């Protein structure tokens, strides 16, 4: 009968170490010494290999990583400037990167912040965390899409949309989502009617803040619109679910039939449609027909220079200049994201159009968005403690 070692038992048993030959002792000691000598240089080598380029420009971006990678690669090729990007996950997006820039205010690591929406840069500018855009780049951009104080430039916009299952009717107004008759419109309503991304992240909170501002102004002017509180309550009554994982999760929920309506952005909707998911998208109006500036909300990308970033000024400005160039906007418009160019003299063929985008006080909305988002989530989920008074 063979010994236990031969069967693959606990192999360590065999080395009971009594009378172990000296050469084995030497060999094993040498092995450990080798590990000791090799590991530190290997670690140092890895650190060196992974160290980012000293001359590079660091870009924090909340844009979908595939799109951002491609655009930044083109930017590198065009400007010759090496770019070190930092992405965040789809779930946390702009909010997390904004928080990161704030937490690094004593030792900034970002040179540029390329945000997928427009509120974060306004808040960062308010807190003095941004540096002015070069005059040449700033003045060349259309005035409606740049900060008067030269803190940021907006480009390549998406639109807020509603996705539904193919064949289901789409709402024509955002207010329709709170209508008691919503379920009657759907062929086979799901138990949860509406999918909303966690408003504390990304564009959903910004959208709520924009609607709040626009509806409040319209209400003051005598236009018949709901208040944000009433709208949120109406959606809760219809059945709403707040999704972790951003707007892509709401599209997924509608495609799988978990919800009948999903609030999302054009890029997520179009990407899903391109993948063959059975959904369609519509651009509901925020204000009634005939009220100017009452279409759906446009969500532009924004880019800003982080104050006291580690990079040299010249390459940072060149990267920024390229990002807000016609080439960049065209690339993004031609991408699966299909963003709407905002720069001069750009005309592209997009599968959607918003000729009358929502007009609202973006600065005021951005100030309130974070607080409002927390309360809106609580209100949608029926939590009374934090939900009181979402809209002013």
């Amino acid at each position, binding site marked *: 009968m063979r010994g236990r070692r031969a069967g693959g038992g606990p192999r360590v048993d065999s080395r009971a170490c009594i009378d172990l030959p000296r050469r084995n002792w030497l060999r094993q000691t040498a092995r450990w010494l080798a590990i000791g000598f090799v590991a530190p240089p290997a670690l140092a080598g890895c650190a060196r290999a992974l*160290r980012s380029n000293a001359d590079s420009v660091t*870009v924090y971006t909340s844009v979908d990583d595939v799109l951002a990678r491609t655009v930044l690669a083109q930017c590198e090729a065009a400007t010759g400037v090496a770019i070190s990007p930092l*992405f*965040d*996950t789809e779930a946390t997006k702009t*909010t*997390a990167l904004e928080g990161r820039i704030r937490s690094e205010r004593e030792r900034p690591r970002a040179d540029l912040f390329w945000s997928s929406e427009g509120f974060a840069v306004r808040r960062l500018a308010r807190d003095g965390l941004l540096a002015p855009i070069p005059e040449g780049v700033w003045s060349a951009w259309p005035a409606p899409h740049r900060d008067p104080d030269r803190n940021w430039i907006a480009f390549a916009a998406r639109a807020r949309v509603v996705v539904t299952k193919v064949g289901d009717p789409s709402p024509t107004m955002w207010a329709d989502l709170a209508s008691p008759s919503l379920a009657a419109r759907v062929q086979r309503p799901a*138990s949860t009617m509406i999918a909303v991304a966690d408003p504390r992240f990304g564009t959903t909170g910004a959208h709520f803040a924009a609607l709040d501002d626009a509806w409040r102004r319209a209400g003051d002017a005598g236009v018949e619109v709901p208040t944000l509180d009433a709208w949120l309550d109406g959606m809760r009554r219809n059945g709403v679910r707040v999704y972790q994982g951003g707007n892509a999760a709401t599209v997924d929920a509608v495609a799988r*039939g978990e919800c009948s309506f999903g609030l999302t952005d054009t890029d997520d909707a179009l990407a899903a449609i391109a993948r063959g998911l059975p959904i369609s998208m519509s651009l509901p109006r925020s204000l009634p027909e005939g009220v100017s500036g009452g279409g759906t909300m446009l969500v532009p990308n924004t880019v800003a220079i982080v104050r006291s970033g580690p990079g040299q000024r010249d390459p940072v400005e060149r990267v920024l200049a390229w990002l807000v160039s016609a080439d960049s906007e065209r690339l993004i418009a031609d991408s699966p994201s299909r963003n709407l160019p905002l720069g001069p003299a750009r005309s592209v063929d997009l599968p959607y159009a918003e000729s009358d985008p929502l007009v609202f006080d973006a600065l005021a909305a951005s100030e309130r968005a974070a*607080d409002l988002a927390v309360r809106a989530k609580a209100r949608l989920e029926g939590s009374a403690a934090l939900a009181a008074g979402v809209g002013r």
Partner: protein
Amino acid sequence: MSSALDAGIDADRPRSAGWVVVPACAFAVAVSVLAIAPVSALGLEWLREVDGSPSGSGEALALPSPLPLLLRSASVAVAVAIVATMLVWPAARRARARRDAEWRERSTPAARAGRGLLAVLCACIVLPIALPPWILYAAIWMSTGPGTLVGDFAERNDLVSWQRLAIMAVSLVAWAGAPAFVVLAAVRPATRDASLLALDGAGRWARVRSAFARDSMALLVSVVSLSAFLLGETTVFDLAQFSSYGYELRTLDSIGAPASTVFAAGLPSVMLVAGIACVLPFLAARLRGARAETRGCGDRPEYTPTAGLGAWRAWAFGVGGASPIALAAIPAIVVVALLLRIAFSIPRAGDFWGQHGDALLASVLIAVCAAAVAAVIAALASLLLAVCSAWRGSIARSMLVGSLLMLLLAGLVPGTLAALSIVAFLNTPYLGGIYDSPLVVVFVLVMRALPVAVIVAWGTHLLEPVSRPRLRSLDGTSLRAAWLGLMPRVRLAFVATAALAVPWSLGELTASSRLVPPGIPWLASDVLNAIHYQRPETVVLAVLGLICVALPAVVLLVRGLGVVGRPLRAPTMVALAALLVGCGGSDSTVADAADDPVTAFLRSAAPEVRDALAVDATLEGVGRGKGQFNAPRVVATDPRSGAVYAIDKDARVQRFDRDGVVQAEWRMPKSDRGKPVGASVAPDGTLVVADTHEHRLVCYSPEGELLWTLGGYGTEAGQFIYPTDIAFLPDGRMLVAEYGGNDRIQAFDREHRFMYQFGRCGTADGEFLRPQALQYDAARDELFVADAGNHRIGVFTADGEWRRALGRPGAGAGEFRYPFGLLLLVDGHAVDALADGAPASGRRTLVVAEQTNHRIQEVDASTGQPLGIGGGIGRGRGRLKYPWALAAAGIGDGGRQRLAVCEQGNSRIAFFTLPLGEVGGSDDPRGGEE
């Protein structure tokens, strides 16, 4: 006799281990400080906040009702731990029985087949340990979407929310079952009750009760430790839309709450894990105590009823008895099957390496570093535990146990708190260098892997055969004897921790994604985004890569359990080969019919090109080996020798002969600031490299000997900013193009003395935006400049007099987008290649490589009229992706000019012959740009 022996040994132990008091104390202090310092830094921040003024954060920045959330998360964690443990417990018992059974010793084919099957089943149970639970979730979720049987059923019956929860439960149980199986299968039974009861013919339930009583401590250890690990999990709950404590903590941090607020919100969980950290050693001690009761018989194999059975009956017993193992392996088998199903349903794996190769490499490197550190900690802890075990009540032993508790505590705090702790600890002026480097990720991964290290170290202590310490003591009291005696367990602790910590680190997301510095791609983040955006090809290939990385850990665990021996090798190798073939095989399919998302993305922005290039050879292969490239951007040829030089983004210069064989290779002297983007072969056969990011020229002999350098950073005459290309004129002049705000061309004489310069940065005639390539026609005194940023070819005299521009921006015929490569032909042959120079007569044409139109275009050098177009984006033969440079490469079939083009995007150099496709083959519906 045994007790007498023990007494003698115990009396001898303190002397034999006296040498270790100092290192034990030093280890305890150092590791405790390192582990607990970050958490302490965060705690201090919180205390300062509490003592000082109110934080000012409103209600929005507070965690609503943290205790119910924590209880909810903890309940799920405990429930999953219990289910997983109980599910694999019968399997683990069977595995233990098989380990000691006689039938495994048989060498008949049937027995070998049985062992092989058992090995595969055990590997399947253990496999999920290599994958984070959120990836298991994604694999099932993506496989049960709309259009599938399960997906449609769930949708029809409005059960999608339940589908999410069910998948979450399956993935968590599958994941938790793996470590539970390892723990339970590794623990050797303390008594022979089960065997004796079996002989007595006792009832099934009596045997189960007896087995439960015997394994109760091991089961408890498994449940408690798994609960602690699951409590820290966040991402799988996010994907399943299950509100968890970890998610709210992370949200609090993301929306800008001060670190102290997050710490305060996370304090209950810290206290909970502190409790767990204190309970685990107690349970471990009980487990060891239970084993100690059976000293003298604990290492004997159990009785098995296969003794005396024939070969086939033994095989039937073996396979039939393995049914609990098969049952426990089902979740993992399902997941792997679903992954493979997705993998085979993808028409083309696509450019995974191009898109995520860096992330995979960087993540593996970082994970290996973190695992190495964790393994060293585990090895030291195992060593010191062995030595200090006899020192009850001593300071060294107390300090060691205390330090292990600290390690457990530091490792088990929620990921968000761990990340914030590191920020508070390292994001300071003194330690900022670490915070800004990838070492910060290594740091946090080590912190997160500490529980693995501690449990493994404790495991080596607990599971060591009880006879081993006594045998060690017989070796004597010398340092050498002690070291040799402890070597097996120390080595086991090191290897097991390293093998486990690598996949564990690769799947860590909550803390690492919060800390990963800019420019460092992190695979887990990429995969999570791919899950969100439903990019199955990325998810599947990343997962298969992770499995490949983690296979050693799986093999080690299964073999370490002693369930099976050598037969594991064959199925493992087959599985590994299948995975590699699966990855590589799909990648080798380069049909243009189906694109990966990146190529599809680029295709949407690039013009359609009908005709591929007439490629007759390629130099390709991504890597750092000979003949391989990492995104080559420079190609230059020597028309006399036929040598081809290529420089890639590793700053590596390679010289190939006519047959594509590497003749020499070397690296640029400096490359940390960037890599060269241009080079030319001088008339004397030397290679002059535009060392772009070092702002100078560097000249090499063909063998790689550095001959001279020229210039340095600056805007003065003779200085450079980002030089791009060099042209040599027959009269000895050398023209150098550069950009970076310094966009101009400088001329030098034979002695490299500055002569003159022309051009400046701008878009007007005679100005440049990144002059990228130069070609000179001596017979007509025309210098052609690929003015990349202006999307045109500028034509000058050698003295700098402006003549004309060719082309305009756009994607149509005769238009350019970032012309990077340029080659002048006279009557279809390269000027460089003409032995006696270019004749004054003859038709001049320019071949242009357009970087972002992904094509090659031939235009008339006088008028800019397009003559031919070829290439187009893709990976297939004759297609291009980010072409950079062009060079003449001899004469091809039919006496036609042969050219070399290097493609950064495809990491290859393609050799093709003219002519290109017809101009009508290019079709851009958008037309040209303004």
